[in-house]
């Protein structure tokens, strides 16, 4: 099982000091967080994509390529890549390039983006969110899987005799996850292609995540990619950890109370009951996280959100230390002991290359 962190790249005022980091500071901080994730033994670093303040990450492949050069083992991913407003040709090119530079340590998570004004800035309409995600991804797959593509569709100018370069590393496209908070159509899309499904998980009650994952698993089996429990599932999680539970609550509360996404609403305790948010000791985080398996089954990837809501870099790095030293080693052991042998690990470049070598090559039309 893979463990890692994901960042939405928000530039948020620290509510305890009133200080807002500059974009320059946050950009340097995100690189440091990614490096630290590798240092402490985590597997994955995933970065969001946004095209509006207060977020800085408009160009994730630039950042991830830089991180790739400064790491050796870390798997680089996105959270999420906007499959609706990006040109699928540019996604195919950018991420194949990143894949080469990173030695295959790349996968992507597709998302639609829920900010209405972003769509028209890129010539699109949020009301076409699902059809855009469907058409653009279908084209992206062909651009990676076929050397020469003739294509026409509803949303983009046609392509005749087009070859997306560079070709994917070793002829194998990066693995793709599809992220969605509430659209079953996206779970259906992930299932259709045999891709991974990532449930954001952190903003909604667990019953909702459970239903989405269950639906994805059923459809994965329906589309012939394996049994339901072999589908590739990822979950988000949100933690704040101190050795002493009360210290964690006391320190995190002002960040929670003023957080841009859910602040000024429920109490930290209420939100912790309703969602997977866990603020407490390493042991509490371990127990809560192991409990996710009870409602989604054996899953392949767990990403934690740790660098949001104005938390200072120093604190974030301390969180990564605790995750790496005390939490993830236990989770790795416990999840591995529970997982049946026929449930696969999350695909990596190496596993995808190996899988292709054992199956006869498909003839492309």
């Amino acid at each position, binding site marked *: 099982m893979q463990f890692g962190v994901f960042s939405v790249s928000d530039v948020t005022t620290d509510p305890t000091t009133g200080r807002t980091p500059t974009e320059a500071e946050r950009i340097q901080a995100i690189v440091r967080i990614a490096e630290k994730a590798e240092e402490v033994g985590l597997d994955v670093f995933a970065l969001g994509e946004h095209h509006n303040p207060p977020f800085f990450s408009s160009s994730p492949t630039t950042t991830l390529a830089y991180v790739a050069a400064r790491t050796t083992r870390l798997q680089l991913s996105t959270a999420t890549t906007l499959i609706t407003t990006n040109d699928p040709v540019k996604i195919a090119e950018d991420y194949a390039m990143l894949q080469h530079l990173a030695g295959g340590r790349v996968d992507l998570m597709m998302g639609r983006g829920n900010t209405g004004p972003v769509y028209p800035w890129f010539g699109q309409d949020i009301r076409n969110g*699902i*059809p855009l995600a*469907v058409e653009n991804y*279908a084209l992206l797959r062909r651009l990676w899987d076929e050397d020469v593509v003739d294509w026409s569709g*509803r949303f983009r100018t046609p392509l005749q005799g087009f070859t997306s370069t560079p070709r994917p590393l070793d002829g194998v496209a990066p693995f793709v996850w599809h992220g969605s908070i509430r659209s*079953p*159509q996206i*779970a*259906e*899309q992930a*299932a*259709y292609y045999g891709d991974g499904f990532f449930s954001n998980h952190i*903003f*909604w*009650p667990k019953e*909702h995540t459970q*239903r989405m994952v269950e*639906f994805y698993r059923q459809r994965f089996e329906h*589309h012939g990619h394996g049994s339901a429990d072999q589908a590739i599932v990822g979950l988000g999680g949100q933690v704040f950890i101190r050795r002493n539970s009360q210290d964690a609550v006391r320190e995190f509360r002002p960040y929670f109370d003023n957080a841009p996404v*859910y*602040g*000024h*609403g*429920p109490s930290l305790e*209420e*939100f912790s*009951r*309703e969602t997977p948010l866990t603020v407490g000791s390493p042991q509490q985080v371990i127990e809560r996280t192991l409990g996710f398996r009870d409602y989604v089954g054996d899953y392949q990837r767990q990403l934690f959100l740790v660098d949001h809501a104005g938390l200072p870099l120093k604190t974030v790095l301390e969180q990564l230390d605790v995750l790496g030293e005390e939490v993830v080693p236990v989770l790795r052991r416990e999840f591995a002991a529970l997982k049946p042998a026929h449930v696969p690990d999350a695909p990596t470049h190496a596993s995808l290359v190996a899988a292709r070598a054992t199956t006869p090559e498909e003839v492309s039309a």
Partner: protein
Amino acid sequence: MTTRTIAVVSAGLSTPSSTRLLADRLATATVAALRERGEDAVVEVVELREHARDLADAFVTGFPNAALRAAVGTVTGADAVLAVTPVFTASYSGLFKSFVDVLEEGALTGKPVLLAATAGTARHSLVLEHAMRPLFAHLRAVTVPTAVFAASEDWAGGDGGELGRRITRAAGELADVVTGRPASARPADPFADVPSFEDLLRGGS
């Protein structure tokens, strides 16, 4: 004998409130009207005051918490709804509208609804027709023709029993609509009709 579920949504704020008083009389009259038509009924009351913070939280977090989910389920799963609000500043109260705002799209489509409101004076009575009825038309609920308004003076009985007659008439109209329908099923499973990906690729959504 069929047993119907009648959900009461009361947005009264004081205890006791005249809004709840009116809601209770409407509920009693509706149960009696259903009995006359050979059907049994149970009444489930949602006091919105108890969910004031849950509603504010739902706006902030984007999802209703467990207590509010239960209240919403009571209303969406009922055979009929009695919607009763005090008049605040020329309309239904903000608390009442907040509850309506957290309902999923389509949650009250086709639902038999009796509208009622309370206020200090009868001058506000058209709030039922100018605010409440358009709101429920938007929700595609089936509102019965008689809406019931109670001003302070109505509780004195000085109207020769007119409030009681309106309550009886409205409850009868609601019972007529309810008895003509199959027992309410819970809202449809949103996952049941997700198009297959082949359909999505062909341009469905």
